């Protein structure tokens, strides 16, 4: 699905990613853990096309294409989805309007007609129920006045409707209480299938109790320093990131 080779990224003159190598095959869930400042969020931003980052070396191939050459909206239309760590509030645009505009942009890109209004509503209402969200959320401005948990659920709702091939979850679990985490995880697990890949960025092992990854990577100082199965996350939780950094040094 996605192949990241020797990726070096700078912000201004400061190198943040220093040679990341990562392969995520279709259908797999990979978790990236690491201390603050390791470059986790930079990785998610670069993959989704946010401005302000310079790729100085390396490549990212997604479904056989050079991902870094695509505008952010083209990446999205090709199936890359970023669930934001800090979802933005957009006063004046309702959730349902955004969902419909986004879905139609995707459909147009793939040569399909605009979605039928009634079908769309039925589909959205089904998905919103699965995420235990109130239908009223649809008619409220995007993320305006939402609690932290509601914002994160809203990101997952967008993923559920846009049905991307490659989902980047950027600290989707941060700040959630256990009940909200369960709901969000349930939403993510419902999206798992053999054609869809996930990159989960997290600080906390707790998320992995609810979404079991195929592979866990540790990112430290701009590089992946260790990879392993789900048990690696438990070991990290017990021993701290310091342990990995020492092993590498």
């Amino acid at each position, binding site marked *: 699905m996605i192949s990241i080779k020797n990726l070096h990224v700078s912000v201004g003159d400061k190198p943040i990613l220093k040679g990341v190598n990562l392969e995520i095959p279709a259908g797999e869930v990979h978790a990236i853990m690491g201390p603050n400042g390791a470059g986790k969020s930079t990785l998610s931003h670069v993959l989704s096309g946010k401005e302000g980052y310079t790729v100085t070396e390396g490549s990212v191939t997604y479904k056989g294409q050079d991902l870094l050459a695509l505008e952010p909206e083209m990446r*999205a239309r090709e199936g890359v989805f970023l669930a934001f760590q800090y979802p933005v509030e957009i006063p*004046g645009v309702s959730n349902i309007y*955004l969902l*419909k*505009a*986004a879905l139609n*942009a995707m459909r147009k*890109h793939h040569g399909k007609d605009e979605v039928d209004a009634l079908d769309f509503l039925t589909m959205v209402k089904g998905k919103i129920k699965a995420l235990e969200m109130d239908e009223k959320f649809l008619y409220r401005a995007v993320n305006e006045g939402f609690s932290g948990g509601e914002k994160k659920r809203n990101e997952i709702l967008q993923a559920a409707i*846009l049905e991307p091939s490659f989902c980047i979850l950027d600290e989707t679990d941060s700040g959630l209480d256990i009940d909200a985490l369960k709901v969000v995880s349930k939403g993510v697990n419902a999206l798992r299938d053999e054609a869809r890949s996930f990159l989960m960025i997290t600080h906390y092992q707790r998320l992995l109790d609810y979404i079991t990854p195929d592979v866990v990577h540790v990112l430290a100082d701009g590089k992946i320093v260790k990879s392993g199965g789900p048990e690696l996350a438990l070991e990290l939780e017990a021993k701290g990131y310091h342990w990995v950094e020492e092993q590498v040094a």
Partner: protein
Amino acid sequence: MTTQYSEAYAKLENSLAGSSLSWLSELRTQAKEQFLERGFPRLSDEEWRYSNVSVLDKKAFSPVSDSELGHIDIADLDSYKLADCWTLVLVDGHYSASLSDLDGIADAVIVSSMVDALKNHPEKVKSYLGQAVDLKEAGFKAFNQAWFSDGVFVSVAANTVLDKPLQVLHVVTSAEVLANTHHVIALGTGAEATVIETFIGCAERYATVSVTEVFVEKNAGLSLYKTQLESDKAVHLGGVYVKQARDSRFKHTNFAFGSLLARTDVHTDLSQASECDLNGLYLGVKRQHIDNHTRITHVEPYAISKELYKGVLNDKARGVFQGRVIVAEQAQKTDSDMHNHNLLLSDNAEADTKPQLEIYADDVKCAHGITVGQLDDKSIFALQSRGIDEETARNMLTFAFANEMVNKIKFKPLHEQILTQVLERFPQAGIDKAWL
């Protein structure tokens, strides 16, 4: 050059509202003296420092009598009339009975032209007219009171609810015309009403001066909308001056989209536990200059004032917001909140914003927030990351910024009208109205 207007009006004096009433002649004479002494405001007047209205001196706009009214395109007029409303139409500053629709209004409510009100209810009008304006202040109030030709008089009896909103439609038909009108809206104790002032005109240069005095008695509530859709060459000076009694509510929303030069004053005095909610949306393009001036005086304790004004400015347009909140010494427990946000779409657009808080009481809550900025890159990226192209994202966010104010309109026909206007005035590629 203030004399040009006194000469022009000298010829029309007998056609001005209430010309046979001596008390009114006296009011007009006082105002005329005040105006001749002071003239229109200058940049050196603190509350007018951002808005140059010297065009009114340099250029002679002409008042017209009610026998000289210009031609009206009825179909065009009808497109601005709102459904489910009482309608009162003023053409070039004069009431038109044939274009208005007031038949069947409840007996407890008076809605009429100022000319008719001065004939039929002179004592009632007398108790209000001129009571909410201070002629000594710099502005256009003295000019207005000296020579207003007509206007609207609304009086809602105690504990009466005006069953439908009243739309006052101001139309100017011809180039160089000056329409100068004066209005009174008086709500008795516990009364409720919604009034919409709509300003439209021909595509030429003309001038509108409109002063509305509002009296909201105890526990009454008035929702007053202003929809300013004047020609992009017009000069518009409008003012709303309000006296709020105890426990009253006053809500004003100004949609200022038209005019080359527009100024709206909203001044209110708050009695105990009364509440005012002032809102505005201004959209400026090309060389438009749109000024909103508010003054809220907390005279007594426990009153609440809220203000939210938003502006979108493109090209070389300039938006001005001056928000003055005065909290008198005895107005303890005042709760006041003022916000002005400006979105600049061009490097040459300008926003001047000036919050002024004058607090003489010591136990109050007064907040204010002001922003002037461009579209937020994070929001643009957030939309792009959902597959929406950058141009559409920018259009959506610009629209959304304005739509926050549009969405506050609860009356559907007005909501529809304003929404359409906003969409017409800004880039809308990629915005699907049916889904808003």
